[in-house]
């Protein structure tokens, strides 16, 4: 073996080559030749070459690294293992299993599992985790492959979690939490130190694979029982996280894991307790959390904990769980009330009370009945509505009608509702922003039997007269809608998933750094799909924010793709190359973010501007020379960013500062192009989740009575009028809208005058007839129409407008086809 200094070189390929050079004999030619290539090639290209199968580069790397892993120097062994992990991370799962690379890495890892050196063992854990991922991916491809191996790796990782070295334990628990499949028997064994006998373990089928549960490594038993009482809080935190994360595999496991997690609430470190609550929240969100009576004591203690963070986290969980018994429900409510009395500033308790009440309709009805009795018996002045207890019970009571169990008839005494009116503020606060206070008021009045709304002349015998009935129906509908909204749109939940998605996106962005472009792209796509689903089910500013994020992810994806192309550096530029198309798409996407959202707050605008800066930078590098238009746009963006950050409410990022510096040093922008790599590396994704009162600008329009079966008629060469029904959302009067109408190559723009449109600030709608000035000399044609909006922020390179919009526009609506047929043909 070579000297240890060379061998512990960070780059696996470099290490491999140094190793090869040290060796005399024929191996030298074989190894020293390809290795420099590997180091020099852009990694992406190496990947594609490998998948092409023309040259067995990863195999050579793997082979030399495996050899090194058998060496005598511990640092070199550890580095070799990390190198293997790097190679394994790069190759595509299906292909590497064909070549047996995973098996090879796995074998190597297993051999060094009991190494004397901690560093080596640490690297083994990383490699094992990665192997598990690859094996799981293979399973996705080929369902027939052996599932036993997953269980074995799982147990091996568990046994590593019993290591004497803290770092190894942390890493091992982390890896356990990331496992993608495992049989139930093995999972249950992790919770119990006692070895579960084989015959009592049900060989339950998980993910379609029946496995003979068998404990191959005895010290893997009860690893979580050890993990949660570890001396180091980092280990305990990791164990808790994994404990919760694995709950998705088995309900039996989840039940037992809950016992352990509940015990963690006595931990002496706050971080661990918070992480445990996070794990519980995770379980509750996915519906694996079934609270039992024995847990209540511990859990209720958390609600009155001295620490506000803990209280808050515990409440959030309580808002999601299902309590099977009335007694538990009542004690939870009592505890919340106690907490409210102790900490009157924590108003979100009302919201939690509402959602608990909503989740347990019949229990809340029970509470309501008692409360009604109390109100009835209380003499004047005795029942003070200001008391937190009464307020709280009131909220629980009125939450009952919103509950899911509609099949049960829940009759809430009307006296409750009439009293609840005085708590309108609290109630609407508890319901969240989705509910309109007015509709709530009218609902309460209706339920409370008070004819407060509309027609005041209606007699006290409510519900008898015609007008009242009409109103009732309307109110009922309204409240139905709100109920629906509160049900599907737990705002907290949505924001939580958004946050986790954004985290994934950030991860994908860093992945791009490590050259895994394909995977990063897939992740970004999937994230966008998820956001889309959320966006479709949301409304208001949160919906707008979600669609904004979709746009943002699109742009990021384009940047990633573009950057990959630029790095590959294909020097041919004939016609519209792929980068050109991508760049144009990116620009459009950025422009949409800039213009199609009203009420962008500062954070969001900075985010968009930075993206725009990046897009322009990429544009520069794509052209290779500096176009004046791009440069001027760049200046504009930089100035805007400076303006935004001028008052210090947000900070100029390293990326923008660097560009500004380079630009100031050299106004022609050559330095910018030269330094583009370093600049782009500086770009950091940090999407904000604070969206304020964001509104999405959008438009929908249609042509009356027109489809391909039923075309409009025209006379060749003469103008023809087309009548549109147009609805506009969140358009202000300074927006300039145009109708973009095209027949083949010829385009006509018509300015849209919407001042006459009816509607409030949010939606405007109206119909108008737009003349199409020239019709072609044809029997029939299709007119493609869409609504576009001028961006007032951008700089137009085209000074003469020819009566049309500036060339800086965004499309507001989908394109619509209008069918025409010449009258002669009819």
């Amino acid at each position: 073996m070579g000297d240890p200094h060379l061998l512990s070189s960070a780059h696996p390929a470099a290490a491999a080559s140094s190793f090869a050079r040290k060796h005399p004999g024929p191996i030298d030619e074989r190894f020293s030749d390809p290795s420099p290539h590997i180091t020099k090639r852009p990694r992406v290209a190496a990947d594609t070459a490998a998948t092409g199968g023309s040259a067995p580069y990863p195999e050579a790397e793997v082979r030399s690294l495996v050899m090194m892993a058998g060496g005598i120097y511990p640092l070199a062994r550890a580095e070799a293992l990390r190198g293997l992990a790097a190679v394994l991370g790069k190759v595509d799962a299906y292909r590497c299993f064909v070549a047996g690379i995973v098996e090879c890495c796995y074998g190597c890892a297993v051999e060094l599992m009991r190494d004397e050196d901690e560093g080596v063992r640490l690297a083994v854990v990383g490699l094992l985790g990665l192997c598990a991922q690859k094996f799981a991916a293979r399973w996705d491809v080929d369902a027939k492959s052996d599932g036993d191996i997953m269980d074995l790796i799982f147990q091996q990782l568990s046994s590593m979690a019993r290591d004497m070295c803290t770092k190894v334990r942390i890493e091992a628990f982390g890896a356990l939490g990331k496992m993608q499949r495992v049989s139930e028997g093995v999972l249950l064994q992790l919770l119990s130190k006692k070895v579960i006998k084989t015959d009592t373990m049900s060989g339950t089928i998980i993910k379609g694979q029946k496995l003979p549960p068998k404990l191959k490594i005895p010290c893997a038993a009860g690893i979580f029982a050890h993990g949660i009482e570890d001396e180091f809080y980092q280990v305990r935190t990791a164990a808790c996280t994994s404990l919760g994360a694995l709950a998705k595999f088995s309900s039996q496991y989840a039940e037992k894991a809950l016992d352990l997690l509940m015990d963690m609430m006595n931990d002496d470190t706050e971080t661990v307790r918070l992480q445990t609550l996070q794990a519980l929240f995770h379980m509750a969100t996915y519906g694996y959390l079934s609270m039992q009576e024995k847990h209540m004591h511990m859990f209720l203690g958390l609600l009155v904990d001295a620490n506000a963070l803990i209280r808050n986290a515990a409440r959030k969980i309580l808002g999601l769980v299902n309590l099977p018994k009335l007694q538990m429900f009542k004690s939870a409510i009592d505890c919340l009330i106690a907490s409210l009395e102790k900490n009157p500033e924590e108003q979100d308790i009302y919201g939690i009370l509402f959602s608990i009440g909503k989740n347990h309709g019949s229990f809340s009805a029970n509470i309501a009945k008692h409360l009604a009795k109390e109100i009835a018996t209380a003499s004047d002045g005795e029942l003070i509505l200001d008391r937190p207890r009464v307020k709280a019970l009131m909220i629980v009571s009125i939450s009952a009608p919103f509950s899911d169990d509609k099949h049960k008839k829940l009759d809430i005494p009307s006296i409750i509702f009439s009293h609840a009116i005085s708590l309108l503020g609290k109630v609407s606060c508890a319901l969240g922003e989705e509910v309109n206070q007015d509709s709530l008021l009218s609902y309460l009045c209706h339920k409370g039997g008070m004819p407060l709304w509309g027609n005041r002349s209606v007699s006290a015998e409510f519900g008898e007269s015609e007008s009242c009935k009409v109103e009732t129906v309307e109110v009922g509908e309204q409240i139905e809608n709100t109920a629906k909204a509160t049900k599907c749109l737990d705002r907290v939940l949505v924001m939580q998933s958004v946050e986790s998605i954004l985290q994934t996106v950030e991860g994908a962005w860093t992945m791009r750094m490590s050259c895994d472009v394909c995977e990063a792209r897939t992740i970004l796509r999937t994230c966008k799909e998820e956001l889309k689903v959320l966006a479709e089910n949301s409304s208001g500013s949160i919906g707008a924010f979600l669609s904004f994020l979709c746009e943002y992810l699109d742009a990021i994806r384009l940047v990633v793709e573009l950057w990959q192309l630029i790095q590959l550096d294909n020097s041919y530029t004939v016609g519209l190359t792929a980068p050109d198309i991508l760049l144009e798409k990116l620009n459009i996407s950025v422009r949409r973010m800039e213009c199609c959202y009203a009420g962008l707050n500062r954070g969001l605008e900075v985010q968009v501007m930075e993206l725009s800066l990046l897009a322009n930078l990429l544009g520069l590098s794509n052209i290779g020379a500096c176009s004046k238009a791009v440069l001027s746009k760049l200046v504009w963006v930089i100035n805007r960013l400076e303006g935004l950050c001028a008052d210090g409410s947000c900070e100029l990022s390293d990326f923008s500062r660097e560009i500004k510096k380079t630009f100031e040093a050299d106004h022609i922008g050559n330095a910018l192009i030269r330094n583009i790599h370093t600049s782009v590396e500086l770009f950091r994704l940090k999407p904000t989740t604070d969206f304020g009162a964001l509104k999405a600008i959008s438009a929908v329009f249609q042509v009356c009575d027109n489809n391909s079966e039923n075309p409009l008629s025209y006379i060749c060469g003469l103008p023809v009028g087309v009548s549109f029904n147009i609805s506009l959302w969140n358009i202000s009067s300074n927006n300039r809208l145009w109708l973009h109408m095209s027949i083949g190559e010829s385009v006509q723009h018509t300015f849209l005058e919407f001042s006459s449109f009816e509607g409030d600030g949010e939606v405007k709608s109206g119909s108008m007839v737009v003349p199409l000035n020239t019709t072609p000399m044809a029997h029939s044609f299709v007119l493609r129409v869409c609504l576009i909006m001028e961006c007032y922020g951008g700089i137009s390179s085209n000074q003469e407008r020819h009566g049309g919009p500036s060339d800086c526009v965004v499309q507001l609506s989908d394109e619509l086809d209008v069918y025409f047929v010449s009258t002669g043909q009819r």
Partner: protein
Amino acid sequence: MSIECLVLGAGQDVGKSCVVATIGGRRVMFDCGVHLFCRGRSSYPEFDRILAASGATDFTAAISCVVITHSHLDHIGALPYFTEVCGYHGPIYMTYPTKALAPMMLEDYRKVMVDQQWEEGQYSYEDILRCLKKVIPLDLKQTIQVDKDLVIRAYYAGHVLGAAMIYAKVGDAAIVYTGDYNMTPDRHLGAAQIDRLKLDLLITESTYAKTTRDSRRAREREFLQAVHKCVSGGGKVLIPLFAVGRAQELCMLLDDYWERMNWKIPIYFSAGLTIQSNTYYKMLIGWTSQKIKDNYRAHNPFDFKHVCHFERSFINNPGPCVLFATPGMISNSGGFSFEVFKKWAPSEKNLVTLPGYCAPGSIGHKLMSGKPTRIEVDKDTHIDVRCQIHQLAFSPHTDSKGIMDLIEFLSPKHVILVHGEKPLMAFLKERVESELGMPCYYPANNESVSIPATKNLKMSATERFITSCAGEQTEDNLRKQKLICGSNMAEANTDRKLAEGILLMEKNKAVKILCEDELVQVLGMERHLVQNEPMVSSRTGAAGE
């Protein structure tokens, strides 16, 4: 070379731990304890057997050093006797906290000796002081060169403040003696921690050879739940305890809970001894658990926030409170815990917690076995017991899972079990042998076990031999390289090659390895060829049979 292991105490028994290991001619005595249920000379290990085994005339010559793992009497109690009465004058090693706690423990025991009026084997207070003066303190992971060959090193063992596992090495032969240890951390002590060493022998305790405990968390929860229920109902909690260890553990648990619940209910310590040992803990922070080490600068966790000043008259005060009182098992004969118990037991609101072990005959033992409603103290007095009883189950010893885990982690060539009961040890031996495949012994007292030890030999190799090995390997690899392209990679791990050569011991005893064709040259001889031609008589018809 072999390792000889003479078990003088704690062989198939708990008490008077003492093992003498002979490694490459060096004799090391691990622990020197007394048996708490015996009196006089029989409570000490039979030291004379060391002289018999070694053939030496005095102990100082026979034994290279004595190492004490921790300050419990069954590990340290006989030390003053051995040094001052038997006359051992060699080096004695123990950790700093053990040295600090030792005088307190030994003096306690000396008083018992006097009380019990031992006829022989007593030592005086001066003996204790003289003995401890000779002790050389050890730090964790500090390697000490006892003499030219013998090296010892201490590793953290949990169990009690200052407990250590001892690694001893002579030449290539290495052993670890664990003493008592705990693989799961407490609130105040960490878990045992040791490197992965190449060992010939592991001598481990096996107190809980058959027990697998559930999580400590569950026991904590039960305890807190019981206390919570009692004090929130306005009751008083009596926790009878011995001074060191458990008291700190439970108090930290309660202090933390009080903090979280924001309670103002007082916690009292009745005994001066506990407060004194708290002071030790405060000084020896480095030997406690990670959390305490991390935080003690901001707040010393042994300065309990909710512990209040206590006076005897407080036991009659109304309202809830928690009281730690000694002695642990509530003995009939008296003690403060008994006094309080008399006062508090009749109310059903109150709670009494019992330690894991109570000696037969004590009130604690009576409460544990069944739930008596009436306890006769003597002819005239009795106590009506209506209070709640909660049994504590915290133990500073590791369970069988922990023992197995440690053995698995260290993977020694041989295992010896001590400090346990015979049937349980037999059970564990089976497990070690069947699950881990290591030979395992559990000798009785005064038995000795001999195991082979590692001896590494240095040898030189000719350049030619090395080149030929390397050449062979690369050729082999090349062949495999072609195989890979045909998609078989899994064999890359089985690269360990066998090299062929001739081992030659020269006149100066140096060993050398060389190639086959070099041999003739080295020996200065000519090569002779012998050819054989085998004659096999065969019949073609026989082939079918």
